[in-house]
């Protein structure tokens, strides 16, 4: 039902801008994620969308209707709070029934509805318990059930997973996905964990210091992060960033760029020669040449440390001259520290950033 639009929304508290000129379009019936590190203003943005706070400037539209000054009761939204915000003096049943009771529905109808939702979320056996008697996962479900009971089309989830144990998180993610698919609701997830955004969201808005830096699908953000911050943030292993010392033009439309410890050849591009640049290489784009065969760019590196995680290995590499890289390879790879191996990558996969961190081009752009 509602498509949500934010137009230059700004919120300032105690003269500190929390949300600055944010414009967003959240499509109908989608799984949307607002991603940002702690303190980036994403929770305030959620409160603005829900109507718990009124913006100082800007407009909020639900399906083209201006709701900027409406309270949360009049907006078609429900929230699952980070700390669940369950009423401690009410049972799970009464907590879930709370939005139904406001509507003054007959008791038997409320009962039917609550039981239906509880059954769907597998908490029907815990309905008579008080929040203090429930486990973290169960509290989460009750909070979700209450949000569903309101019947709102938009459900805002504020960091729903951070309070849960690592492994429970995995299961909960699965369920959130199912929930959105089966209920066809518009879910907006507020999260600081890029894994949540990657595995769940259809579209993502990355926030930092009150501003939305980039919006797009998972692929768009992964493939073309707007700047170094997004590049580093949005990935499983942090992106390697290398300073480029020198760019040398070569004949036949080629240039050579040099880091402190190795060099590579790229097709000529004017931008690269004119500006001071940095390059980014994702850990998963680095390969060990003895296993993958030689790549377009190859160089030698010393192993500082190998960390085996399940079937993957993260290799910390020393290139000398104070340059280090991290590579993530999809095999179990154990070597002695200090051993030298050859590493390679495909220059099409690299990211080229300007000196102030903005993305200039992907390596593959240069080859067209």
């Amino acid at each position, binding site marked *: 039902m509602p498509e949500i639009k934010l137009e230059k929304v700004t919120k300032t508290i105690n003269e500190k801008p929390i949300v600055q000129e944010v414009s967003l379009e959240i499509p109908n019936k989608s799984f949307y994620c607002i991603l940002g590190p702690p303190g980036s203003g994403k929770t305030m943005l959620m409160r603005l969308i829900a109507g718990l706070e*009124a913006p100082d400037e800007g407009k909020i539209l639900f399906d083209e209707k201006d709701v900027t*000054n*409406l*309270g949360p009761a009049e907006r078609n939204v429900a929230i699952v709070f980070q700390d669940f915000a369950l009423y401690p003096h009410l049972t799970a049943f009464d907590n879930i029934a709370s939005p139904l009771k406001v509507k003054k529905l007959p008791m038997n109808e409320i009962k039917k509805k609550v039981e239906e939702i509880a059954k769907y979320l597998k908490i029907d056996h815990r309905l008579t318990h008080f929040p203090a008697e429930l486990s973290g996962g169960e509290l989460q479900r009750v909070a979700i059930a209450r949000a569903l009971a309101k019947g709102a089309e938009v459900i805002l989830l504020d960091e729903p997973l951070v309070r849960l144990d690592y492994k429970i998180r995995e299961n909960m993610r699965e369920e959130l996905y199912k929930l959105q698919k089966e209920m066809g609701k518009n879910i907006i997830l507020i999260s600081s964990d890029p894994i949540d955004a990657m595995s769940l969201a259809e579209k993502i808005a990355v926030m930092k210091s009150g501003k939305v830096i980039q919006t797009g699908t998972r692929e768009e953000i992964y493939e073309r992060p707007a700047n170094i911050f997004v590049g580093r943030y949005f990935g499983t292993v942090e992106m390697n960033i290398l300073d480029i010392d020198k760019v040398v033009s070569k004949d036949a439309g080629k240039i050579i760029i040099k880091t402190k410890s190795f060099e590579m050849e790229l097709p000529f591009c004017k931008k690269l020669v004119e500006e001071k640049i940095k390059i980014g290489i994702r850990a998963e784009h680095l390969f060990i040449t003895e296993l993958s065969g030689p790549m377009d760019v190859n160089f030698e590196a010393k192993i500082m440390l190998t960390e085996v995680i399940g079937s993957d290995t993260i290799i910390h590499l020393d290139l000398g001259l104070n340059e280090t890289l991290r590579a993530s390879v999809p095999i179990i790879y154990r070597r002695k520290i200090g051993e030298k191996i050859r590493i390679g990558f495909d220059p099409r996969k690299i990211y080229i950033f300007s000196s102030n961190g903005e993305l200039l081009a992907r390596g593959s752009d240069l080859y067209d």
Partner: protein
Amino acid sequence: MASEKKTKTSLPIFLQLPATIIIWSLVGYVLPYLIYLSFNKNIPGKGLVFVGIENYYKFLIDPRVYGDLFRTIYYSGLGTIIEVILGMVIALAITNAIKNERIRYMVFLLFLIPMSFSEAIVANMWLLLVTPVGYINSFLKVLNLPTISWLGSDMALTTIIISDVWQWTSLPLLLIYAARSSISKEFYDMADLDKLSSWQTFRVVTWPHIKWAVAVSILLRFIFMNIYIDKIFILTYGGPGFATETLGFYIFLQAFQYGAYGYAAALSIITLLIVGILTYIFWKFMR
């Protein structure tokens, strides 16, 4: 839509309205009138006569005020110091002495009981102990020791301080004990692993965590010792002579014994200013 915005801004004011009205119904008269009084003099038969700053000038040259000021500072200063130091020592002693948490908590509660009574009740209770034929003196007689005139001019102020210490050591004890209990056990575990001595542990673990409570205790006790004159009123009525007369009690006497409304008002305003400054320090400190 418009009404939504309106309620949002007027609600907080509406919430404060009843309290504000009630408070100002009295304070709104009392404060200006107190200031007015301080510039007047109550002359029997004539009523109030405007005298300018005479009352304030009198404050400066009144030799009795200096004695009172000295006693006030001695009384509240010494009392505060003893109470806070004792409170801290006992708070730490409880934690050291009793390992069982439930018993420790019960002893702690027991030690807090005196503070739940009012100043006036405590004064009356202590009367039974310190009156010349009272319990303490009869104990001294049993032990063949000379009896002490607890409410005589030499001892009276000390006696009042002792009764205050009995009652109010509980407050620093409460605050410092609470601060001590909130120190994570891991700090002491760490000190244990580091093999620190008891003194080192106190210096680097305990003290940094309780110093805030100690400071709050000092401020609170110092302020509150100057607010109430109940103990003095009931135990000694300022006497014998001027032996237990503090500035607060002097104001009371000026107002109700000597009928010097104007002078009492001037002294009150000076007191209010001093307490105001202390309150401000406390308030800044708490924030």
